[in-house]
């Protein structure tokens, strides 16, 4: 302690050291925000007209109509569920070998690069774009939706599972290897127990995502409840649309509850 300065001050060092750069960046962000905001061309008259329709829509939620179009709704929901289950199961089955290949601590370099390539392609395209492609190839209907979601499930599960495999405890893997186990035995005894909770958690999460996605895919003709919802909007049947949205929300809530329950169980 020096006697000359009895109390020394301290300040947290700033994230950007250069003062000019720091305030320059701040100014730029503010100016850009204002400029961006004023570049919107908002038709206020149109917004005002729309308020009525918005209110109609909100009112419809207090009085959803499940009955009039029940056949369409139930068929749509059922189709969405079928797409969800099949695409999740098939996607996971295909994702597991790809995840093994995409884990740098298991696979030799060429296999690794190949599997990472598959994952990159599967993740690069948004589901809607894939769905449009699949509809173009396979025609309208749930098959296109199934293939779309299975494809994006592969990208999702394989990537996250591969990362979990790369993070396994190395001594456990070494221990099993040092017993003289074969490669598949090693996978089964050292890797699988370590990544199983993650795989189950991801799979259940993916059921959730696939159900929500399957209700959008209908908009581009790839099957599911989205088509029913779209039709309801087109006909200004807001009460039916409200019924569909309420059902989607209910199913997602149930899935959410089930998935958190199962994930807590498998730790």
């Amino acid at each position, binding site marked *: 302690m020096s006697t000359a300065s009895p109390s020394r001050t301290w300040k947290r060092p700033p994230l950007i050291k250069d003062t000019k750069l720091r305030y320059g960046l701040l100014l730029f962000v503010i100016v850009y925000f204002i400029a961006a905001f004023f570049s919107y061309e908002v038709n206020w008259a149109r917004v005002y007209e729309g308020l009525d329709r918005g209110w109609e829509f909100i009112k419809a939620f207090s009085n959803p109509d499940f009955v009039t179009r029940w056949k369409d709704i139930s068929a749509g929901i059922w189709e969405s569920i079928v797409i969800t289950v099949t695409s999740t199961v098939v996607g996971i089955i295909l994702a597991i070998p790809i995840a093994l290949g995409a884990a740098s601590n298991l696979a030799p370099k060429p296999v690794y690069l190949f599997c990472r390539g598959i994952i990159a392609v599967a993740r690069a395209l948004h589901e809607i774009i894939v769905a449009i492609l699949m509809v173009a190839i396979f025609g309208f209907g749930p098959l296109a939706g199934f293939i779309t979601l299975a494809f994006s499930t592969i990208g999702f599960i394989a990537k996250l599972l591969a990362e979990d495999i790369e993070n396994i*405890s190395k*001594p*456990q893997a*070494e*221990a*099993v*290897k*040092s*017993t*003289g*186990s*074969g490669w*598949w*035995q*090693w996978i*089964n*005894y*050292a890797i699988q*127990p*370590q990544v*199983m*909770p993650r795989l189950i958690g991801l799979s259940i999460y993916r059921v959730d995502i696939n159900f929500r996605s399957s209700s959008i895919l209908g908009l581009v003709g790839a099957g599911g409840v989205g088509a029913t919802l779209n039709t309801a909007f087109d006909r200004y049947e807001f009460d039916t649309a409200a019924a569909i949205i309420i059902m989607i929300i209910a199913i997602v809530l149930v899935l959410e509850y089930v998935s958190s329950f199962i994930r807590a169980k498998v730790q």
Partner: protein
Amino acid sequence: MLQLQNLGKSYKTGDDALKGVNLEIPDGQIVGLIGPSGAGKSTLIRCVNRLVEPTTGKVILNDVDVTTLSAGGLRKERRKMGMIFQEYALVDRLTIMENVLSGRLGYVGFWKSFLRKYPQSDVDEAFRLLERVGLDHMVDKRADELSGGQKQRVGIARALIQDPEVLLIDEPTASLDPKTSRQIMRLIAELCKERNLSTIVNIHDVALAQMYVERIVGLQLGEIVFDGPPEGLTPDVLTQIYGEEDWEATIDEVSDDIDDDINEDGIDSAKNTDKVAKDITEAVSAP
């Protein structure tokens, strides 16, 4: 008989972890490998069963040169080399029985191991070994439910069910309390004698090593700088291995301390097997 001839390992980073180590371990001998962190102790042990691929030299186990084996041949040879790890390295989410039986993976086919249909003789041996280490009453517990000492006993059983000719032991007591450390070292020493196993034990605790091993090898910067009986570890030798420090106090204090502790526990000697068995049972029943 395990022979290391001019064994060397250079890592890609350019570090020479081992520089031409020559070592010969007759059957039934326990060698304590001591040395500062980074001296190459773990690398040496892992070069023997090629978890780490040595760059130069040979590892010869009963006339078989391990370093030239193909993948299949290496797997067969690894069965003869039991390994015990610092943090126990049990597969946490498998049961104790599965962990022990995993020591037989080199002997059974994939489907048998996948379906957990091991030959009855393997299951019998697993029960016998678990009984020997005092854990046969908890075979279906998951490995992560055990205490450190219990985990290490399972680790020992897993290594022994391989029916090995060599034991490679990497810091078996580094994560254990002093009393459990002694129990584990005592158990290892007994089992090696019973089964006439050549054994290398990496160990940080010099005093503990002196109690249970019959030969000490000091490693420093990848080279052997001491090879002799435990009594040969004078302050000068320790300085040579670890660097300048007041070793006199360490050695004296440790040996006194050990006698006291053993008397408190009511155990007169490591060779008194009845007491040891009791000791183990006590340790196991304690949570």
